């Protein structure tokens, strides 16, 4: 096959890491192509709970990770304020928690320079009326919530403005190896089936838990990337207004993050083998609901919207042995130098890490590449902000915006306050036929009705904007329903089951989408 594209760098993976790397490399003047087999942030980045770490969760167990969080938390608030809501955070202990932990926490916070202020239980309950009233000690920190899709799209958009080419729905099917050097890759356009080859000077593997699969294509085996499965449940509204954590060693179901209009509880930590096979189990769901009840009494009576699983890219060299509970695996990141490790040049892998430190991870990876290439191009991502509105994210943002267009514009997704103009613009700009893609960037259909009303409207508009013919529109609607169901049925009880029944009535009873082929 003829070479159909050339670039300096191929970044594999369009999550937070990949987008950050593309931005960093593009900013340093490299010609970048980023490839992801699906939409941006469709993998791990799109499946996390939205926490911008203060560092508190790592203080006692992983000092280095905590320090990184303190630094990057402050940096990101300056660089991408529109992706971050300053919710603040709270760590609180219950009577059966280790009584020595809070002091260890405070001590470590001092040493690491992480802002932490102990407050009284009464004050904690005043700030968070739904908190478990049995709170013993409470410490306020600077957690925040960060919108992953906005973040990824911001960095990718910035990279694009500096000449990078962002190729979503392009799966890497092979890496080309000439002797010991990686020279390029084969890409398959997942939408058209078309294949092409790209020739590059360097490949940066930012594919997270899929890193091992990519390396397999280069003939490199046994890299210790361990997909750590974690489930999360989005609750219909903000049960808490700040991030709430248990003041104890990190465990399951010990954090609730208010992110946009929902609050997300997480998470579990189970070794998976295939990052694409991470089913949500009933036992995990039951456990998570119990955990929630301890953080916020009455949790089980609140409405659960969706449940999903993400796979963390945890790094542990497989040569060190088998892993079952991935919580003990380091959460800091590491550059895997394949030159040193495997004798293969032109290839580096980022392993481990968390979204909070994406900028630093990107810096480390690109620095390593720059060093191997023998160039002198320093990193500037700590001081140059990617293009964005510059205003911090506020919960009421969309409500305020809607006030301005109340009389002029139709509201399509009512739960998430998306107007027709915004939707049509997004549809045209993205040029997508997939309603799920729009769901990710706009939050279309992610509110309580889970698309019950807006999906029909959005399908009609997409059809009208002439991006779909009738058959595609029909397929898109059915796909959306099937896709959405996956995240809904394991937590279907109470209010959400009622909603699902109403939605069943609308789609199957009223529209009869089942027979819409």
């Amino acid at each position: 096959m003829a070479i159909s594209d050339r670039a300096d760098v191929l970044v594999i993976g369009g999550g937070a890491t990949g987008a950050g790397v593309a931005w960093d490399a593009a900013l340093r003047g490299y010609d970048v192509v980023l490839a992801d087999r699906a939409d941006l942030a469709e993998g791990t980045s799109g499946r996390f709970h939205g926490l911008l770490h203060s560092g508190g969760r790592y203080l006692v167990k992983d000092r280095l990770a905590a320090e990184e969080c303190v630094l990057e938390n402050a940096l990101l608030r300056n660089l991408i304020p529109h992706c971050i809501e300053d919710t603040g955070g709270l760590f609180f202990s219950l009577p059966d928690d280790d009584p020595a932990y809070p002091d260890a926490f405070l001590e470590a916070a001092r040493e690491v320079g992480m802002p932490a202020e102990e407050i009284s239980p009464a004050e904690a309950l005043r700030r968070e009326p739904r908190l478990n009233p049995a709170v013993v000690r409470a410490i306020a920190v600077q957690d925040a919530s960060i919108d992953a899709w906005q973040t990824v799209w911001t960095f990718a958009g910035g990279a694009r403005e500096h000449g990078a080419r962002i190729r979503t729905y392009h799966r890497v099917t092979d890496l080309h190896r000439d002797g010991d050097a990686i020279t390029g890759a084969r890409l398959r356009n997942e939408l058209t089936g078309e294949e092409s080859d790209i020739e590059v000077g360097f490949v940066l593997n930012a594919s997270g838990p899929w890193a091992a699969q990519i390396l397999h294509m280069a003939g490199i085996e046994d890299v210790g990337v361990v997909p750590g499965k974690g489930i999360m449940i989005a609750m219909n509204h903000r049960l808490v207004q700040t991030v709430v954590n248990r003041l104890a060693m990190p465990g399951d179901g010990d954090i609730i993050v208010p992110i946009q209009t929902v609050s997300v509880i997480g998470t579990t930590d189970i070794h998976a083998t295939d990052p694409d096979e991470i089913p949500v189990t009933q036992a995990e769901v039951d456990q998570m609901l119990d955990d929630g009840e301890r953080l916020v009494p009455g949790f089980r009576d609140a409405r659960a919207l969706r449940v999903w699983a993400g796979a963390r890219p945890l790094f542990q060299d497989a040569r060190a042995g088998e892993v079952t509970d991935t919580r003990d695996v380091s959460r800091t990141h590491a550059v895997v130098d394949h030159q040193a490790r495997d004798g293969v040049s032109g290839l580096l892998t980022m392993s481990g890490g968390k979204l909070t430190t994406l900028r630093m991870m990107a810096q480390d990876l690109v620095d390593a590449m720059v060093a191997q290439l023998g160039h002198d191009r320093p990193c500037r991502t700590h001081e140059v902000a990617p293009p964005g509105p510059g205003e911090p994210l506020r919960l009421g943002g969309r409500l305020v915006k809607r006030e301005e267009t109340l009389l002029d514009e139709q509201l399509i997704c009512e739960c998430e306050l998306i107007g027709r103009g915004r939707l049509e613009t997004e549809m045209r700009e993205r040029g997508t036929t997939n309603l799920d893609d729009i769901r990710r960037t706009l939050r279309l259909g992610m509110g309580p009705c889970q698309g019950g009303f807006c999906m029909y409207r959005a399908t009609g508009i997409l059809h009208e904007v002439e991006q779909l013919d009738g058959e595609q529109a029909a397929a898109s609607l059915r796909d959306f329903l099937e896709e959405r169901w996956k995240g809904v049925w394991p937590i279907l009880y109470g209010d959400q089951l009622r909603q699902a029944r109403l939605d069943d009535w609308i789609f199957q009873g009223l529209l009869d989408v089942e027979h819409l082929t």
Partner: protein
Amino acid sequence: MTDVLGELLMRDSLDHCVKCTICETFCPVSNVTPLFPGPKYVGPQAERYRSDDAPSPDESLDYCSGCGICTQVCPQGVHVAEINTQARAKLRERTGFKLRDRLIARPTVAGALGTPVAPLANWALGNPVLRLALEKTIGLHRNAPMPIYAGRTFQRWARRRDPVTAERRVAFFHGCGTNYYEPRLGEMTVALLEHNGIAVEIPKQGCCGLPLQSNGMFDDARAYVHRLAASLAPYARAGVDIVGTSTSCTLMLKREALEILGLGDDPELRIVSERIYDICEYLLALHDRGELRDDFKPVPETVVYHAPCQQQGHGIGKPAIELLALIPELTVHESRANCCGVAGTYGLKAEKYQIAMDVGAGLFRQVADTASDRSVCDSETCRWQIAKATDVPSVHPVEMLYRASGLG
């Protein structure tokens, strides 16, 4: 069954919303103007976007009239109207209160000031030039249905009357409307109850705080309702039922103050809330037990009965309809409207007056089309609205029963 007060977290009831749109179809305001995006939008939907430090960024919420129909019709149990009222208070914390709202939300103040100079006050409120000036300055619509000062108070009559004693007794919560504007209604109520062998005690009492609550002045509303509850609680504790002729004020004590102002922990309000009844509710219960004198004389008239939205908020059906049905030769047309539009102080405001009139238009037409002699309605502010709009007198159901009992 769980403690009903466990459900007093109005906000959390938003979880029950399945976006079915039923509340929107019944909302009297959003059906007449797009300025109000509707109860579903402003209640359970927008509430997900509100937080303590950014309470209510949406001004359109202020067009909610607080009629409460949305909560009545919601099939899932969302406390829509209550969420809206609480959100409005938070909105006002941010934007502040208009002078006009401060004035009209305190009927005891207006009443106390105007009663001694009633003829002058009435003249002023009826004077078109002064009313226009009022509209331009504080935003009270020139055509807003203002009540007429009676020039005396019901409380004073109460102190001077000769009370009947009897085994059974009730405490009478008459409300500000009766006290300053319709003392005659209070007298009729007392006479009717005494006629049925019930002694009536009339405690000293103030305002229930409903207009303050509706206008978002929660702290003041709490103070008012707490004081009122304190004066009524001794009766409730002694096992004496409390009856009220202003159905909206009665609802405030029965339910709204606890739900909306978060006063579930106020022991006096709780005990009052358990023993307070709308007067028609009370009289119908007497009738069901065979204890109501139903030797009514014929009243050969045609009336339209309108159940105020707040009456419907009691959830007791329409006892007035069943009571009026006991009066021979009385033709009663049941209003189809959910709301007459005034919604307490809402329809008095310049920016809302026309909305209120549009809301009530169907009801006003029905009064005209049926050639009714009068309209019958359990809430004073509704009576003043309907009377002004239809030019036909509007009376409380008690007045019809009073007349049919041959008492006056």
